[in-house]
């Protein structure tokens, strides 16, 4: 009785912790929300004169979403192809090892990614970015001049893409492996090539799984701090120029950079931005998990 109570209590405690995160953030963000606009920009020096709290958070949300989307656009196709490779192309015996190799990417701490991105990747990427801005500069997002060193949101997006690749791969691989063997064998028996079998049996079956995998990756990319803080040169405008430095910033990196030397109302403002980030990631993750759980209920593959 005591034991079952303790077990149940621990479960309830987890729900309480999640609620506490939201409540504590809200309580600590409240001073920033309730302070009138002029007073706010007066007492927090990095808020521009006359800007309201929302004017400050807006560009940050924009930068967060932009960086995450760049990462998602790069990572999703590669991750799906890798998942298909591991589940359907690689030799059986090697497939598990390849799976471990991709999982290793997830084991590396984010700060090491940041270090690698800032000190190794940036010099490698500069010629590519220069080429992009020179020959594709007529497309607005690639408008130059390409920043040197490329402390731009595109570099940050590439690092984020590497970081979210393992989770997208892992989830979609699971889904692909669940494709009923009969569907696959039926397709092959009708004379389909391997690619046609994948297109007709595996991908339709795994579509919702791919979507939720991508959303989970998006959730990761939205909240990633260190890699962005170490690579990106921050700016606070709504800007689509992904090859120029000092244009965007993401919420998490902004908190990490400003928090250590903030006090008073500044801390409250940062906690408010954290609350916004929490709300966004919570929403994305809930949608992703909802898709997964809905799928589990009516798929016969479990």
């Amino acid at each position, binding site marked *: 009785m005591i034991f*079952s109570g*303790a*077990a*149940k209590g*621990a*479960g*309830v405690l*987890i*729900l309480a*912790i999640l609620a506490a*995160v939201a409540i*504590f*953030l809200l*309580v*600590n963000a409240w001073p920033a929300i309730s302070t009138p606009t002029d007073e706010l920009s007066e007492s927090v020096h990095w808020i521009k004169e006359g800007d309201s709290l929302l004017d400050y958070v807006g560009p940050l949300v924009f930068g967060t979403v932009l960086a995450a989307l760049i990462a998602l656009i790069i990572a999703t*196709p*590669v991750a799906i*192809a*890798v998942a298909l490779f591991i589940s359907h*192309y*690689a030799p059986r015996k090697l497939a598990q090892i*390849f799976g471990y*190799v*991709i999982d290793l*990417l997830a*084991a590396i*701490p*984010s*700060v*090491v990614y*940041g*270090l*690698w991105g*800032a*000190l190794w990747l940036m010099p490698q990427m500069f010629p590519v970015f220069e080429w992009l801005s020179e020959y594709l500069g007529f497309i607005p997002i690639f408008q130059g001049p390409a920043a040197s060193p490329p402390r731009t949101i595109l570099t940050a997006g590439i690092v984020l893409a590497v970081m979210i690749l393992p989770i997208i*791969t892992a989830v979609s691989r699971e889904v692909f492996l669940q494709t009923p063997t009969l569907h696959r064998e039926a397709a092959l028996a009708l004379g389909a*090539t*391997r*690619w*046609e079998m994948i297109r007709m049996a595996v991908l339709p079956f795994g579509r919702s799984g791919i979507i939720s995998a991508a959303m989970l990756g998006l*959730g990761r990319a939205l*909240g*990633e*701090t260190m890699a962005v*803080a*170490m690579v990106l040169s921050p700016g606070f405008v709504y800007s689509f120029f992904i090859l120029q430095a000092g244009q965007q910033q993401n919420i998490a990196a902004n908190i*990490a950079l400003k928090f*250590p030397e903030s006090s*008073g109302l500044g801390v409250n403002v940062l*906690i408010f931005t*954290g609350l916004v*980030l*929490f709300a966004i*990631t*919570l929403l*994305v*993750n*809930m949608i*992703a998990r909802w898709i997964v*759980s809905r799928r589990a209920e009516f798929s016969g593959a479990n």
Partner: protein
Amino acid sequence: MATVQTPPSVELSSPGLTRGKLPRYAPVVLLVLSFAAVGGLFAALGSFSVPLTVFLGIILYAVVILVVTTFVEGARAARDRLATTLMYSAFGLAVVPLVSLLWTVLENGLERFNGYFLTTTMRGVFGGMDAGGAYHAIMGTLEITAFATVISVPIGMLTAIYLVEYGPKSKLGRGITFFVDVMTGIPSIVAGLFAYALFVLFFGPGVRMGAAGSVALAVLMIPVVVRASEEMLKLVPNELREAAYALGVPKWLTIVKVVLRTAAAGLVTGVMLAIARVIGETAPLLIVAGVVDSANFDLFEGRMMTLPVFVYGQYTQGLAPPGPDSIITINYDRAWAAALTLILIVMVLNLIARIIARIFSPKTGR
């Protein structure tokens, strides 16, 4: 009279029914040829570079194999070959960052990675001095992570027991499962802000201490522990539980003596993997545990350095001012060495976890 009707054999073997087939070695040969062609072209132009050769070589190979297969085997087979090429190159592309990252960390980190680095703090080290190490950061990381484990393992495991043994079908159980999944997606920085907000209540604004870092890490660790333990408990065969019940053993004793004991190795593996996941967290510790140069062993008093924050701190200091005995890149060198230490810790944890899982995994007959 007895004319035997000869089957129209000529028409049966008409070219329409069977297509030609490329020999098995064709793709490999074509790939090598493409690399040679692109590499040769670059060498002739005098600007040879490996990444560009590989990149353009694969593109050339994709085009060539598409054309060749279309003529020999038909359009459907050609599309299949193209897809195969794409899958293989995607995997290659995904491995590039891993290899380059491990290589750069080893190359740059090994130089300063020695006994001195592991046993010295940064106390009194400034500028480009050829001194200083990560001892304080390593101790801080170990202490903070250990305390986070102490907090999160009981909560996580009890929750997993509840989910598997008591309430797998109940509304509360499903709710907890859902929110545990959602909780895995909490950004680490938000966990840090939560720990800060919690400790401000007791210690006033501007609080920095190791224990707060542990709380932040525990928030990130609990869902991982729950998920891993849940999977392991589900693997325990129901027959064992029923045998215990049949002998009149109460439920809680069955769980403690039978279920947990059977799943012990798996549970340890899960906890180790969870530790490996949070030990590299930087952002929350930067916020609540702070930055300090000397060793501090007290979790509840004052700032505490950790290894990931050490890497970040050294990186942000940038190049040291030039001087007579000054090593300009010393801060970056220390950052790389600390990164190497961190990766080694994570890898060892992962390795131990996998070995335990391999040796003690319950024989489920699968």
